[in-house]
Each structure stands twice: as C-alpha cells, then as structure tokens.
C-alpha cells in the first residue's frame, strides 16, 4: 500500500514534469477545462446569489409560513341570497380563526385607509394601517423607540399610534416623538412608538426594496373599525395575514382556514387564500429549470474540454510509445504506466479546475459589479468544480492510459 502511494506520488511528479516539458500542449489541454469550470462556477454563483436574495427578502417580510387571506372578487351576474348577505372578511373572522384554528400561530387582520394626519406643523393625508400586536412578531419588525401596539390597545380600541421611521422623520424631525399627540381624522392620538428602519437592497441602484415598511402609520385595527369607520357593525377588514405554526402543515392550515371561513360566511366561499409556500415552490421549480439548463451547458463545455484532452493525449501518444517501451524495459508494470498517464491527465484537469474556479470567481465578481447584484461563491460549488474536473480527467484519460499500459514492450521499443 505504501509502495503504491509512493508510486502514485512519483507519477504525479512525472506527470508535472512531463506537462512542464510540453508547455504548449498542456496549455491547449487546459483551455477547455478552464473555460468549462469557469462557466459552471460563474453561472451557479449568479443563480445562487439571486436565490439567496429572494430567500432573504421573503424572510424579512414574514417568511414562508405566512399566508394572505383576502376577499374574492365575486364574478357572474346571478348572486344567491347567501352570497349577497355575506360581508366578506370581517374582524370577527380573525377573532374566530385565532381562537379555533389549531394550525395557526398568528392572525393579523388589517384595515388600510387614507386619513388626514395633522400636528406639530405637519399636515398630510397618509395611508393609515390597522394592526394588532401580532404584526410585530409576524414580520419580526420591532420598535426603535417606545413600544408597539399591545393586546390591551387592541381590546380597548385605544387612540394610540406607532410611526414608521420615515414618518417620524417627516413629522417630528429631530424632536422627540414618543408621548406627543397627533391628530388623525380629527381625533387626538398619542404616539407610543417608532419602528426600526427596515432595509433590503436587491441592488444599490434600485434602492431600498422595503422602504414602504418605513412609511407605516399604525393604529390598532379595532380603533380603525370602531372610531374611524362609519360602518361599525360591519367590522369589514381589508385583508389578513395568517402565520402557520409549522410550514409542513401549510396544506392542512389552508384547509382549516377555508373550512372555518366558509362556516362564518354562511357557506359562501368568498375568500382567497394565497399561499407563500406555493409561490416559493413555483420559484424553486423555475430555479431548478435554470439549474438544469446551466448544468447541461456546463457539462457540455466540460465534455468538450475532456475531448480536447483525450485528443491531445492521443495525438501525442505516438511520440511517447518508445518512452513507454523504455519504461517497461526498466521494470515499469502496466499499472505504473496507466497510473502515470491517468495522473497526468488528472493533474492537467485539476490545474484547469483550479484556474477555472478562479476565472469563474472573477467573472461573477465582474458581472455582479456590472448589474449590482450580489453573487455567492459557495465552498460546495468550488468543490464541485474541482471534482468535475478530476472526473473529466479520469474519464478521458482512461482510454489513452489503458492503451499505453497494454503496449507490448518489444514493439514499443522498436517504434520509430
């Protein structure tokens, strides 16, 4: 075993020496592999970079456990009596869901309406959002000053407001905000908190993709319904977000939510449940199509690289026949010769792989600078690039190696 390892090591030295002595040949052999590995590394770097960003964006906006429940637009001219009597999503639906649905962790009913916000020299009609205490946890979005809305605020329909960081800036500037009073739709609301700044950049040029979250004006949903709306009995909400306990139970949760809402709506199916997981899976599938496409392209370029290697090995084969004969006369076994040839082609492809990874990393850097999108170079990808090149080396080196190992020493020595 030790002798075998030693002889393989010697083959490596032999192989490197031989490469060194046939520089042009070796460079030609390298080109195909370098470009093949580089293109694989570059494309996967870009794809992975994009995918990781989408995942991060999803995480920052409620994660995959979130689903959206909203009114369905009823179509058709004829509506049944039950359909006519159903009011669509109400605050009560949210209360029932939170109480009854076992698969659901958080329910966040919201109402959005434009109201006049006034005070401290500021006056502007802004979108005001109704929220509950659940919002903070669902979006992992926390106050920087003061506090967020609490369950008590919600149950008391308290006249309190929490501002997004941009809104605080607009209204109060550098002055303290918490404890101040703002007029919303003509009533006095106490500012109890200011949210952290939320940021996410797909690329620098497009700006903060989550800036809309910094423009929130939150008041309790119940306050919106009971103190601002004319239709108090209706308790109509704009939509609600629901967070599932376990992402594996997504299908079950959708079923449960649909069943409960069908009951509260008198048997009418007038809500849509939009599942984020389904959207993710769709994206995953698209991603997989890209993966396969680029994998095939990469495989083709590696194949071409491999064929170039085999071609050059075979073309230079004849000039090495005498050498093989000599080595055999000096005591090299067929195995020694085969190892020598294989190691040589693996050394070539491995060097090609290393250069290819470097070049591919350079490509991705360049492209990422150009389109201003981060890229990912995972260790797994580098390893994959290198092992691909070794496999190509062994695969395409095999035939010439076996051919050399099988040479009859006498005929090989006579070869002119």
């Amino acid at each position, binding site marked *: 075993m030790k*002798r075998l390892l*030693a*002889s393989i090591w*010697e083959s490596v030295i032999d192989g490197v*020496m*031989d490469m*060194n*002595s*046939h520089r042009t040949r070796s460079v030609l052999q390298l080109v195909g592999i370098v470009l093949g590995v580089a293109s694989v590394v570059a494309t996967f770097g870009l794809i992975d970079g994009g995918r990781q960003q989408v995942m991060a964006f999803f995480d920052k906006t409620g994660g995959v456990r979130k689903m959206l429940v909203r009114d369905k637009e009823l179509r058709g001219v004829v509506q049944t009596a039950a359909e006519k009597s159903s009011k669509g999503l109400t605050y009560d639906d949210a209360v029932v869901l939170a109480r009854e649905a076992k698969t659901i962790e958080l329910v966040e009913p919201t109402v959005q309406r434009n109201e006049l916000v006034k005070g401290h020299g500021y006056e502007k009609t802004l979108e005001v959002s109704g929220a509950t205490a659940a919002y903070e946890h669902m979006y992992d979005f926390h106050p920087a000053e003061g506090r967020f809305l609490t369950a008590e605020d919600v149950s008391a329909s308290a006249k309190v407001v929490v501002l997004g960081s941009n809104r605080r800036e607009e209204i109060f500037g550098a002055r303290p905000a918490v404890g101040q009073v703002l007029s919303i739709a003509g009533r006095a609301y106490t500012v109890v908190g200011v949210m952290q700044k939320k940021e996410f950049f797909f690329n620098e040029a497009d700006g903060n993709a989550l800036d809309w979250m910094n423009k929130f004006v939150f008041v309790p949903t119940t306050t919106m319904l009971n103190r601002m709306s004319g239709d108090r009995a209706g308790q109509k909400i704009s939509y609600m977000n629901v967070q599932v306990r376990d992402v594996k139970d997504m299908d079950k949760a959708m079923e449960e939510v649909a069943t409960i809402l069908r009951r509260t709506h008198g048997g009418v199916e007038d809500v849509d449940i939009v599942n984020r997981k389904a959207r993710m899976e769709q994206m995953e599938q698209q991603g997989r199509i890209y993966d396969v496409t680029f994998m095939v392209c990469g495989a083709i370029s590696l194949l071409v690289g491999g064929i170039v290697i085999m071609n050059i090995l075979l073309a230079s084969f004849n000039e090495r026949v*005498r*050498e093989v*004969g*000599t*080595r*055999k*006369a*000096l*005591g*090299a*076994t*067929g*195995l*020694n010769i085969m190892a020598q040839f294989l190691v040589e082609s693996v050394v070539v492809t491995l060097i090609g792989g290393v250069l290819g990874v470097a070049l591919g990393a350079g490509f991705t850097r360049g492209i990422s600078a150009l389109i201003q999108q981060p890229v990912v170079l995972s260790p797994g990808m580098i390893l994959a690039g290198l092992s691909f090149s070794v496999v190509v080396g062994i695969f395409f080196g095999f035939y010439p190696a076996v051919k050399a190992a099988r040479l009859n*020493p*006498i005929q090989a*020595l006579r070869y002119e």
Partner: protein
Amino acid sequence: MTDRALDGLALTLGAVDVNETVQAAPARAVAATSGDLIQLSAVTKTYDAGELAVQALRGIDLAIGKGQMAAIVGPSGSGKSTLMHILGCLDGPTSGSYLLEGQDVSAMSSFQLAGVRNRKIGFVFQTFNLLPKASLLRNVELPLLYAGLGGAERRERAKAALERVGLSERAKHRPAELSGGQRQRAAIARALVNAPSLILADEPTGNLDSKTGLEILRIFHEMHARGETIVIVTHDPKIADQCERVVQIVDGRIEDDRLNS
C-alpha cells in the same frame, strides 16, 4: 506484414538446410553448471502472424556463467533479437525453459516479468532511450523509482552510478545537451543503478562512431573486470572479438559458440 513475420518467413524457407548443419556440429564451448546465471533449455519462439506460424527460435540451449562477457552475433533475421528479448524477460518463450539465477521465468506473467526486469536486468539500447526532457539524474533514477525506493536513496545511488561512468558533472543536464557517447554512458549508468545480475546491451555502439564505440566498450570491459555479467547483442565482428565468448545465431539456432583466447 511486419519485419518480424518476414524474418520468420525466411527462416521457414531455409529450415531443412540449417537443421542438418547444426546437428552435424553441435558447438558447446561452455557447459551448463548450477552456478550459471542464465540457463536456456530447448527454448523455441513461434510468432503467430496470421496464417503463418513463424519460428524465430528453434531450440536454443545456452548457459552463461556469472561474470561472463558474451557477445551474441548473427545476421539480421537470425533470431538474435528474439533471443535477446527472451534473455531480457521482455517476452517469454513458446516452449522450453529459462532459468535466471535458478529461477524459472519462462512461465511468468507480464507483471512478474516487469519485476524481474527491474531487479535483475539492466538494459542498454542502441538508441540510448533516455527520457529527453528529464535530467540525467532523473533518467538514472527511473529503475529505482519502479523498484519503490525512496527519493533520497534513489538520488544517492543514481549519483554513484553516474560517477562510475564519469558523468557526475552532468547530472543536471538533459540528454540533448550531451554527445552520443555521453548519452550512452548515462544509459549504462541507468542499467547499472539497480545492481542487476545481467547487463543486456543491444547494439550499444551501433549509433556511435568507432572511436566513441571503443570508449563505450572500454566501460563494458571495466564492468566485466568488476564481475558484472554482460551480454552484448551485435552484428559487428570487431565488438564480438573483444568479448570473452561469442555465441553465433543463425536461423534460430546456435551455430557457433566459442571462447576468444
């Protein structure tokens, strides 16, 4: 058709005539003893060239003692190259036995033969057959590499072998930077480096001018004086005359086997 097949065809056509000559004069200069390095008995070699079976060797009995310097001579197509290949364990006989240092090598696998070549035989070729891109040192190390020796010991022994042929100054040079005589000396160093039982030289002076050829021959004489066993295959009578023993092959048989006085 290959050269080998043509050689054999010539042999087949002339077969009857030769048979009688050999039986009439069975020349045997040196009797086989148990101390012999090489013992060939009734060795034949038949090449299968398509429809024609070509007999290159037709029953060779030959014993070469340790420390002998023998020349194998014969016209081209006589079978002397085939004999050399068998002596060098590059090929096995079709029938008959070959004992090398008492070990029967005639039925060995090609893997085993590689080991025997490595340990017991040092080859010197007409065309030197040095690896062109490797230094002399690396070239001389090659048999030790296949013997599985460590790097330090290889280098040491290779340097010693180069010194024996007077090339220690040139250890780092490549073959192309040397004269033909120097190249052949390097090849001799390579043949010696494994301390083989037998040095087998195939027309070692064939590619050299006569002055350089004599120089190479002098090295062989020195080696002989130190007790090495040397077999030189040649068609040059001047070389053969300098060897202590001359074995002449004609048409696949030993026609003459004499000691030079």
